[in-house]
């Protein structure tokens, strides 16, 4: 959660993507985590993104600090 500071929060966020901790901009979306190939798979419906609780996330879903997401490829 963002601090009580009244100014707009601009610090980057940390997200774990497929086990790797990476820094992203605030406001970045799930699709921004994906490589070109991964994006193609998702758009074709042969892969999708899950959060650490196993919930699927849409590609336009906004990322939050501390999220852990991974790509699930359908066989």
């Amino acid at each position, binding site marked *: 959660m963002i601090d009580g500071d009244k100014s707009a929060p601009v610090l980057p966020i940390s997200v774990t993507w497929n086990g790797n901790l990476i820094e992203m901009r605030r406001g970045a979306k799930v699709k921004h985590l994906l490589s070109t190939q991964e994006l193609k798979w998702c758009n074709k*419906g042969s892969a999708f993104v899950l959060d650490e609780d196993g919930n699927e996330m849409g590609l336009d879903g906004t990322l939050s600090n501390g999220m852990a997401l991974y790509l699930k490829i359908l066989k």
Partner: protein
Amino acid sequence: MQSKSARILSFFLIGFIYLTMMSWGMSKPLNLTILYDNDVHGHLLPFNDNRYGQDIGGAARRATLINDIKKTNQNTIVLSAGDWISGTPVSGLFRGKADWGTLQRMGYDAIVVGNHEFDYGQPVLRETIKSSQVPFLAANIYQNDGSYFAKPYIILKKGKTRIAVLGLTTQETPVVTHPKNVEGLEFENPLVTFSKLLPELKKKADLIIVLSHMGYEEDIQLARQFPKDIQVIVGGHSHTKIDTFNKSEGPIIVQAYQWGTFLGRLDIQVEKGNVINTQAKLIPINSQIKPNTKIESYLQTYVSQIDSLMNKQVGMTSVDLVKPNYGHPLSNLACWLTDVFRERMGADIALQNTGGTRANINKGPITYNDIYNVLPFDNTLVLMQVSGTELQEILDDLANRANSGRETSAISGVTFLAKNGQATEISLAGRSLDPAKTYTIAANDFMANGGSGYTLLKKAKVIKYDTVLRDIVVDYLKEHPVIAPQAEERIKVVK
């Protein structure tokens, strides 16, 4: 004649029976149904999706389901967790008018203000809120004078239960929208807002529902901080598909993915303000659901105009506009687009990744449809600031891509030689690059977020966000109705 004591006894007996019946009625659990969606993003019409199937979604089908469920339980609340607009032609072409008109007709009880609700400008949103019969909620958005931008909460009465529905909006809104859209508004930390309003809510309501456009992680934090005060959090913003409901301690958190692919249904049994039973599911919206004819005919008035609007001329080109190919960014269309973006932001340089420019435009009239085909993604323009040293690294990356034949970016405001993976003979408006100076870069948000491997841009400081690229191009054409851009070799590849 009855004795005095018998009369007193009868009085107490009747009173006892009455009170017993009253309390029996009072304690009878309330069966409450909450229907919800989030992040519809202008998906008023059915759409195709490779993940969930063809011909799915659509507001008219959702309306049928809402009406049918309301008929079976009058204690039904219908909520939308924000980002109702923006993301489809029918939404964009009519600047949200079709979206807001549909919302009024679907039987919603409340909507929370999402960050994308500002996409068509603050005046449009203000007017919408003012004229809307569906309450817009936002407890943590304040105006300059300290007053609320929208209603903080509403109280609904179902049976004898008073239900507070409070709206909370992501505090990141000013970071992800054009500054003008949120001018004069202050977004408070939602946790602080909720803490402040809680005593008031407890007095007025037996049950508290938070309608949140903050994202699933933030909803979890809110639930952890107020485990006994909130009963339900209906969320949005992260487009999370919550279909496994493990009711344990604390508030129930729900969210229904995106685009109206599903309608969420949460059935709870409430007794004395406590949730004693829970059932939840996501109902797929598909062609098996008969569309609501009122919504369908309302939308038809807009659909019938889409073709003519998409084919409306927005400019003219005296030359063929040719898109770039991977590794060969020499394209008059890409040069022109980056020039437009640079001018719009008043930036030193502008970038546009090759894959972001998707179609050619033939010589002659330019239609909105042409612009849509060239820029089909809903990318927005971002202005960033970097040091001279950082700019050198970014240009070296472009040079490296150009030398190795990989996807690179079209540029404006700078020329250089790409030699051995490095940018040399850099010229910025006729001047060489000064490592000690700061420079501004305009690029789409996909690149700014490190898309296609442009990870160096991800580190740049964001100065401001602008609207979607398509609208920026159309705005430019209003001022410059005839264009004839030439392809310029701004990155000269030395083998």
